[in-house]
């Protein structure tokens, strides 16, 4: 069965979540344009979630985003509507397109909605119990030819497909957040993946204008394989520095170094907040269970015990976690001992900054991320860090080496087929300016 046929009957499970919404939007837009190009076919998108309010929010989100997409694609719409005498203004056509997109959405709480679907995208809660229950239910309901694409970012798929009775019909198709914008899809083929499904996944990625990077079916894959260990490294650094500097200054320094010295788009703790501290814990648990690796953090548990979770509002604004945010900028750091936030202000901050020492001057992630050839500037930047004898430079060298070691480990363990795949995931999925397996500070390796 070809992709076009399958795309006529699609379901998204967990559609109202952060990732599910984005996946639903991508599919809704694709179906909307297809429906206009192929008026003889019927396209249906089943959006399934336990959260009624979330589903209504999702339809709103799709409506607003479809209008924006139609506006961007107005020339295409003018062509598609050439024979529609009733549609003349741009506005007429954008509204009609939005209607076409919404027309094929069916929302509901039951998996029975997916029973005719030929492609099922799953972006449910990231635990094995939840996913097992969903796939078992779907296996009983869906046609035998249905393919399942899981957005799991950590759970191995071979075991899952076997346990649920859908061997060969499940593949890992891991989008990055937000799916509309992020170009990366991490593609995880379980051992027995049907060749037709593997081909189809590549075609689908191309259709959605995504770039795929293959990862092995090993818990955490490449993206979380790096992220979770990088986050745990940062937490250990905080714990190492805290006795001397105090917890809040220590966390501030590690955050600053990961963002402003390593030139990442956000600091490591802001990234954990962005993902959600709870989600971080779930993923770490899945990985630990499958890999037999110690990936536990008492600090993470402590934050969650105190109800500090991070994550995002439905509008995409950051919720307080390790850091508190004002207009998406960090303004305070959570101190679990005090059970309160400490403002990023005052004498303690000055003292911490003085201990850190300055970053080299002249660059930031912002100044470089649109640079088509940032290589020479990165060379100069890291050369400067090499020559600095400050705490900041020392922390930067340590973090760089740790991140690089994590990346190399992913290659050695066979999670990634080579350094270029690790680097591609970090660059495309995490917007890093350079891959972790690079040489900038590598000669410090001892």
């Amino acid at each position, binding site marked *: 069965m070809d992709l076009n046929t399958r795309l006529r009957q699609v379901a998204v499970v967990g559609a109202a979540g952060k990732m599910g919404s984005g996946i639903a939007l991508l599919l809704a837009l694709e179906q909307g344009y297809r429906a206009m190009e192929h008026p003889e076919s019927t396209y249906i998108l089943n959006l399934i979630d336990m959260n009624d309010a979330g589903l209504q929010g999702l339809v709103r989100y799709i409506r607003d985003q479809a209008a924006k997409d139609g506006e961007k694609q107005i*020339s295409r719409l*003018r062509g598609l509507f050439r024979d529609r005498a009733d549609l*003349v*203004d*741009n506005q007429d056509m*954008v509204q009609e397109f939005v209607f076409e997109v919404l027309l094929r959405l069916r929302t509901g709480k039951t998996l029975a909605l997916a029973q005719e679907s030929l492609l099922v995208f799953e972006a449910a809660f990231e635990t094995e119990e939840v996913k097992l229950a969903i796939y078992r239910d779907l296996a009983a309901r869906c046609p035998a030819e249905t393919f399942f694409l899981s957005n799991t970012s950590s759970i191995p798929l071979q075991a899952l497909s076997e346990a649920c009775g859908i061997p060969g019909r499940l593949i890992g198709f891991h989008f990055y957040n937000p799916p509309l914008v992020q170009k990366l899809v991490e593609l995880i083929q379980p051992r027995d993946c049907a060749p037709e499904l593997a081909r189809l996944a590549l075609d689908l990625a191309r259709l959605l204008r995504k770039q795929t990077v293959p990862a092995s079916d090993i818990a955490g894959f490449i993206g979380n394989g790096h992220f979770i260990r990088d986050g745990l490294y940062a937490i250990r650094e905080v714990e190492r520095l805290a006795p001397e500097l105090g917890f809040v200054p220590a966390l501030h320094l590690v955050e600053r170094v990961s963002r402003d010295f390593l030139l990442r788009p956000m600091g490591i703790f802001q990234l954990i907040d962005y993902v959600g501290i709870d989600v971080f814990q779930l993923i770490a648990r899945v990985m630990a269970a499958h890999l037999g690796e110690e990936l536990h953090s008492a600090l993470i548990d402590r934050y969650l015990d105190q109800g500090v979770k991070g994550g995002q509002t439905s509008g995409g604004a950051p919720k307080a976690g390790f850091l508190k945010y004002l207009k998406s900028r960090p303004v305070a750091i959570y101190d679990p001992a005090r059970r309160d936030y400490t403002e990023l202000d005052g004498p303690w901050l000055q003292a911490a900054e003085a201990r850190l020492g300055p970053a080299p001057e002249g660059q930031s992630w912002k100044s470089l991320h649109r640079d088509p050839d940032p290589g020479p500037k990165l060379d100069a930047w890291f050369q400067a860090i090499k020559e600095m004898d400050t705490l900041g430079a020392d922390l930067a060298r340590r973090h760089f080496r740790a991140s690089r070691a994590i990346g190399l480990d992913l290659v050695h363990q066979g999670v990634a087929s080579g350094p270029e795949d690790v680097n591609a995931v970090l660059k495309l999925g995490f917007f890093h300016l350079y891959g972790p397996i690079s040489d900038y500070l590598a000669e410090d390796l001892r």
Partner: protein
Amino acid sequence: MKSMSRPVFLAAGAYTVSLGPGRKEFSPRIERPGLEHYIRSAGADTLAQISDPALIDEGVIGNFMAARFNRQGHLGSLMTIVHPSLEYKPALRVEGACASGGLALATGIKSVLSGLADVVLVMGVEVQNTVKSLYCADYLAGAGHYQGERKDGPAFFFPGKFSERAGAYAGKVGPALARSAMAHWYRNAVENARLNPAAQEYHNTVADLLAQGLTPPNPKGFTEHLNLFDCSKVSDGAAAIIVASDTGWRRLGLTRQDVVEVAGFAQLAANLTTPPPDLTELTTCRMAAAQALAMAGIGARDAGVFEVHDCFTISGLLSVEALGLAAPGAGAQLVLDGATGRAGQYPVNTGGGLVGYGHPTGASGVRMAVDLMRQLTGRAGDYQVPLAREHGIMLSMGGNDKTVVSLVLRR
């Protein structure tokens, strides 16, 4: 030949900031003032220059599309918010697409010529940033023939229409010369706008304007022959001026140095449903300017300052030719030579024009008259040019050269 049956003058006059992209205070995300604010503001600044608002006999307001941009019709009645003394007097809104302001002037002039009025408050207003530029393009496309050309036209309709003209002009004079002249037009417009605090490009600090103007057009994203710098932006603004008889301006407490005389004017409409006879010429503009100049008894080169309707840089070049300042096809070189710059022989659009000041469509014609009057009476402030001659000419164009008003003013 038609002549002015009695002397008519322009006096007082003001215009608001042209608000829109480019202005520091503009953001699509923050709430902006509506029609009423602009009408009140330009009106009040004008009335402040005359002795007694009660002396105004009539009001005319030019507006193109408030019915769609602001869901507001009936602007003749709305303009009485400027002053209580306007109530229970004649007031009307006139529409001629982007020449609506020019049309308001012509209407005011005719009222004074008729003898029924001695003092007319002429205004123009448009508030366009109520919708995204894509939908703004829909509304502005109403200046073309909706039934005949909208359906098959491009998404950005008027940029598309003038792109066709730019393409034809490039075919006539050579693409490099045409592009270069359009880029020079853009640079001159922004440089002038930097001297005019009300201009939309007043805050522009780009170092190499010429390089921007030379940006190759992107046919896929926009148009084949125009880049974004060739276009006037989406603007909110209003302008106002007094049209008065000889007795009229004297009553207002003004002196002859404060006012300029309308030496000639013309108002023409061409058939909206037919394509332009020659894409490389603004035929209606040429005919309107010729009539106004004939009425004034001068030639274009006898004037010392000019206001033309550069909704796009290409319309600027073609206007220079339509006025007769350059032969057909020679406008590009004239602009390249700097003749239309501040220090040139024919300073054009000294306050920025539509590309630099902005283009609140219904207000543009009135804004042009205010700028010309300021130049001729030495009140243009930082953008004042030394005046070699005593006449000024304006050309206000609606749609694709379909409604045109031309005025010749004398100090």
